[in-house]
């Protein structure tokens, strides 16, 4: 059972990687600051490095959202397995729909559903759900959007039109910082899940740090996931909400970086996905003449609203089946693999690749001087 949990946790880590590549790399790809494959390679390397440099791993699997331990829910490998199933399935569904949604919320949702099946609604700490998940989810896009809006106005007010191509260089640094921060935060989640599964299975002493092999495999899984691209979500965030120019891309990335770092270090953690999405919307409002596709933004917001309930329903169903015995777990696993394969095959029918994101040559490239155009137009004998 523990081996199954570890395999599923690593797959969750992989989906987390490709789901969240867009947070850092959607805008530099959209403005042409980085080529798609170069962008995801940088993001993958920084996620790999980030996973190794941070030593902070959560002591509780849900951060207090579920009443764990004595008097609360007994965290077992089966419960973690059911929760992970909900999280992975929701990550894959939102990926096929091209919706940026929080992987952490999906994991919490799956665990909530599994915990409710195990111990009833008393298992959930509602005040933590409100203060750590629901209110921050509403506030995050507004904070990032405000910062991004003002930063965009500043970027356009200070620079001349012909100077604005320079913002592309700045984007490389800000997006890299977001990737590094992502690696230090998100890989720790899976390390915590695997470590707690090992402790629950009596394969590791309680209150001990993750073993090196756990850190290594989690780092590799999130980096591999990041490198595969998650092009659908990159397309939505980079092109679907608004058309992004280099000053906007830099302003949005700077807003994302500043908001994430400020919130993480002041004890008010905000979802990277929601911050990045808010920044893109803010920069769309901030540039005169730009428009925001509110229909797409509304779809994304709807996805955020139903992330926890949807993952919870899957987690609960998986936990119900798993509770009946080993054959319930086998059915869970078989159904999950079938659904995952179905989603993968569906994705092949409407494939989105790096080619779909490559900037058209005419965009953001200054027209050549007339003389050069004439020269270029002369046919060689």
């Amino acid at each position, binding site marked *: 059972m523990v081996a199954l949990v570890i395999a599923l946790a690593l797959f969750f880590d992989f989906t987390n990687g490709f789901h969240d590549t867009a947070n850092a790399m959607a805008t530099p790809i959209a403005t042409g600051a980085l080529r798609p494959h170069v962008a995801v390679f940088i993001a993958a390397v920084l996620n790999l490095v*980030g996973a190794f*440099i*941070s*030593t*902070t791993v959560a002591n509780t699997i849900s951060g207090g959202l579920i009443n764990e331990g004595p008097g609360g829910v007994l965290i077992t490998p089966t419960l973690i397995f059911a929760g992970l199933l909900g999280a992975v399935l929701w990550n894959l569904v939102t990926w096929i729909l091209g919706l940026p949604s929080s992987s952490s919320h999906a994991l919490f949702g799956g665990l909530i559903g599994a915990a409710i099946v195990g111990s009833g609604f008393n298992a959930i700490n509602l*005040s933590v759900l*409100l*203060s750590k998940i629901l*209110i*921050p989810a509403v*506030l995050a896009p507004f*904070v*990032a959007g*405000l*910062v*991004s809006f*003002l*930063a*965009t106005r*500043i*970027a356009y007010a*200070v*620079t*001349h039109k*012909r*100077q*604005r191509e*320079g*913002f592309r260089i*700045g984007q490389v*640094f*800000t997006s890299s*910082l977001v990737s*590094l*921060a992502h690696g*230090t935060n998100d890989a720790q989640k899976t390390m915590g899940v695997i470590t707690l599964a090992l402790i629950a299975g009596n394969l590791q002493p309680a209150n001990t740090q993750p073993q090196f092999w756990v850190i290594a495999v989690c780092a590799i899984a999130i980096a591999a996931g990041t490198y595969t691209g998650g092009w659908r979500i990159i397309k939505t965030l980079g092109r679907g909400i608004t058309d992004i120019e280099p*000053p906007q891309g*830099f*302003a949005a990335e*700077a*807003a994302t*970086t*500043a*908001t994430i*770092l*400020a*919130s*993480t*270090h*002041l*004890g*008010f953690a*905000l979802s990277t996905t929601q911050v990045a999405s808010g920044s893109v919307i803010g920069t769309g409002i901030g540039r005169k003449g730009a428009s925001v596709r509110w229909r797409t933004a509304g779809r994304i917001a709807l996805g955020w609203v139903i992330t926890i309930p949807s993952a919870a329903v899957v987690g609960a169903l998986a936990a119900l089946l798993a509770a009946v015995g080993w054959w319930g777990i086998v059915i869970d696993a078989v159904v999950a693999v079938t659904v995952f394969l179905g989603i993968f095959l569906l994705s092949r029918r409407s494939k989105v690749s790096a080619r779909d994101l490559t900037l058209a040559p005419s965009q953001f490239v200054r027209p050549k001087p007339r003389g050069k155009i004439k020269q270029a137009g002369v046919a060689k004998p």
Partner: protein
Amino acid sequence: MIEWANFLVVVIAALVGGCGEVTLFALGLRFAGPETDGRLRGLGVVFFVICGLLVALGVCLVIPALGPFFATI
């Protein structure tokens, strides 16, 4: 419940950090970018350097091991 004072600090820090970074980089481009007065190029470079230091501060915040080093600066 939610700690609104912390949230306010996050908003202010994000505004100062995000807008500050963009302002510094934009001023760098303004003075050291194309179509600029050559005499002010040095000032533009200074703005780029300060912007780079702000990014370095971000790296220090991301990497816990650099925290003590940052505290000594």
